[in-house]
């Protein structure tokens, strides 16, 4: 089933004299339950794409539909409600509130929906178990490792059972071991909970955990590959091939 439909979106920055096309006519469909990675070099427009999908930024032209709702038409309060109910965010630098415990950080996503405490408590413990962070729930962010923080942030993103989880370079600030652990959790959530995950990354290893990789270059879709029946290792090699191809005419080390 189609969850997200992006139709000919464009995003321009700057004035008429010096126009930057961050997104130059991108169209994309994402199925429900898909784990998609968007890859591209710095400045390719991948973060802008994520921002317009997450309604943090606005498109200059085109439409984005989530479950047939045109989210580019949402305004003010509807936007907040949309983000609260339909989206989950995971950031590179975790973005946890340092004054709150892990438990409270995760609960916050539910308390702003004004749910009862019992529901909140159950949900928090459920996702904590899935992400294997039950033992750090009462700790503060500064008492946790980077991997734990990112898993807490992930728990906060999925605790509301969002339609779409948006992850912006989730492994960017993690060491390789923590990154692997986190990605395995993403796979688990994708497989067991049927969570739809859209992840932006420039790391081929991270991307190889997804089921589909879309490459962006200069604000346009360059190509896309699906994992199909490949093992993760095979998929990784195919990604590297595309990255090399991309790097062939752009002197940008990915």
């Amino acid at each position: 089933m189609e969850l997200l439909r992006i139709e000919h979106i464009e995003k321009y920055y700057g004035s008429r004299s010096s126009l930057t096309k961050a997104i130059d006519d991108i169209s994309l469909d994402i199925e429900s339950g898909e784990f998609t990675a968007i890859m591209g070099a710095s400045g390719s427009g991948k973060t802008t794409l994520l921002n317009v999908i997450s309604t943090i930024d606005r498109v200059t032209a085109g439409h984005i539909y989530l479950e047939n709702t045109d989210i580019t038409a949402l305004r003010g309060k509807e936007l907040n409600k949309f983000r609260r109910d339909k989206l989950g965010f995971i950031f590179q630098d975790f973005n946890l509130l340092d004054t709150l415990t892990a438990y409270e950080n995760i609960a916050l996503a539910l308390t702003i929906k004004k749910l009862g405490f019992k529901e909140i408590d159950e949900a928090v413990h459920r996702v904590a178990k899935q992400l294997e962070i039950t033992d750090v729930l009462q700790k503060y962010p500064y008492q946790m490792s980077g991997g734990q923080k990112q898993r807490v942030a992930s728990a906060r993103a999925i605790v509301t059972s969002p339609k779409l989880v948006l992850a912006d370079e989730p492994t960017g600030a993690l060491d390789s071991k923590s990154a692997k652990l986190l990605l395995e959790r993403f796979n688990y959530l994708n497989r067991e909970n049927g969570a739809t995950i859209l992840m932006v990354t420039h790391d081929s290893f991270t991307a190889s955990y997804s089921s589909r990789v879309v490459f962006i270059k200069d604000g346009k879709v360059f190509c896309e590959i699906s994992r199909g029946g490949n093992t993760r290792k095979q998929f990784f090699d195919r990604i590297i091939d595309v990255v090399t191809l991309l790097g062939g005419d752009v002197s940008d080390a990915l």
Partner: protein
Amino acid sequence: MLFKLTLGNIKKSIRDYAIYFFTLIIGVSIFYVFNAIESQTAYLRVSRDTREVIQLINKILSGVSVFVAVVLGLLIVYASRFLMKRRNREFALYLTLGMSKGGVSLILLAETVIIGAGSLLVGLLIGTGISQVSSALVAGLFEADMSEYHFNISAQAIVKTLIYFGIMYLVVMLFNTVMIGRKKLIDLMNAGKRSEKLKLKNPVACVIMFIIAAAALGFAYYMVGWRTTELEESTFFTYIVVGCISTYLIFRSVSGLMLRVFMSAKGLYYRGLNSFTFRQLSSKVNTMVFSMTLICLMLFVTICALCSAFTIRNSLNRTLNECCPADYQAGMSIFNNGEEYMVLDYIPLDPEKIYKDAGIDPEDYFEEYALTRAVYDSSLNYEGFYGEYFDEAMVLSDDIGMILQEEPLISITDYNKLMEIYGGEKETLGENEYIELCNVKKSAEQRNYMLERGKEITAFGVTLKPKYDECINGVMELFDSYNNYGVTIIPDSVAAKAEAGVYYLTGNFNTDDKQKISSYIEKLNSEAPNPVLSALNKEYEKLDNESVGFNYYAVTKQQFGEANIGIKALVTFLGLYVGVVFLITSGAVLALRSLSDASDSLSRYDMLRRIGADERDIKHSLFLQTVLFFALPLLLAIFHSLFGMKFAYFFLGMYGVSAIIPSILMTGGIIMLIFGGYFVITYLCSKMMIKPVNK
């Protein structure tokens, strides 16, 4: 180049500096206004007595100014260091670009000079404006003629303000230079990264600490509020210290305690942004326990000072009308010193003859007057008076010094004569009855105790029963405050048994014209030679006896009124001066901290928006944080003040504490205006700061 950079910096950080600048301006203008009072009063046409009082007030105000300068100086140093800390990374940038530390110091120097000069200029301008308005208030306070209006600028006050604030700014510059000189580049660069470590406290320890602090505070309250009379200077000081330390401990433990309490109410804690709001607030409170303590104590002093000042001000007129219900009273007596200490043997006098000898006809001065007499029975000293209830009366009393005095007695006819003048209610008395007249609360309690029990007294050999079971309120002698510890009204037949006593002339002048009254008083009370006194002296010389003494005194309501003017003006000025300065100091510290916190938390608010928190909820959270942050020290200060004022009213009792509610309202009004003003500005500024950049 440096100058350009400096101006740019100020423009850029105008939002951070706005509150600081605003506070400086208020500080300067307040300082000017109160120091300009001296030159304003110079124009006032007032009597000589009032002039002396004014000089005294000016001396006191300039003494207090030194204290105020110290407080404002500390505020300025605190605020500027606080703002500096926020700019460490900017300085680091200059240093990495190759600027010397001297250069950075120079920039700071230039900034301080510009801000200092600006605030002084604007502050003095505003101060001059305010002082034009306040000169009317000053004239009103001294009940002086305002027919001649003078636009006045006090050069002296300007110079004083410039010098005091100049010194403060110099200190700030020194501080800043030293600070930059001592910091390492790496520390400056990393200063922007907030340390994520929070001071966490053991909740159980917090609860224990809070309980101990509350208990200590309760004990101090009890000792100061209820055992007021047992206080000695040293123990009083101890309780103040106990109070301060307890306040500190309460702020140290309150967030931990609240967390414990609040978190147990899970339904409330995990609703909306409550957990976020609460954690934000508690981390703010935890990092500024000491400042919160100081702010709370300053607010406490402010409330007590303002409340006492207004109470004295509001009560004085009423007290005067109650304690001095007639315009004029003179008392005269001639006596042999008795064998016992303080027991006098009065010799008969004819006051009418004395006045005739003095060439004064009371009819010329008074619309109505009365000649009365107070008599004494040496057996009716306090011990004889209270008799079997003496011990209980002692327990009820706090004034041990009154024991030896004899009870003044007045005949019912004389009392009614006085009531004619005073406009009070007349009394009737049976042949063996007596009435107690009293207006001191403690003393009335003592007397009521014995009256309730039907205590009989013996005056001049006649046994008398109380007519009423409580004292009636009133005075025999005119005074400016509640000073009638007790006068007994006895039947004429009993009073007639006394040969002599103290003779009084009491009257109301036959005019309301102030000038005319002054000329009357001039004649009646002229100092050398006073006609009445000389006439009395002649009578006294007739008695050729070494142990004879004589006494004469005269009081006028007008003089009491003038003395009251001085007290009123002094307490009003002092209360307002100290109160306003403390209020802006506490308001500014809280505002600076709140604003910097809001700007530090921008990323947190962004995060909340990303996970979909409603804009309304975010605003509500900010509002709660700001309100509670301001309210916390204020609430504790109000709590302190409840007991502090109980203590203060004990001492103000003499002046009378009639207008408590209006005083509280006026105090509340001033606090709302200044402290509330800081709160509103802080909230509006923080709201603007956290507004989303793009929607």
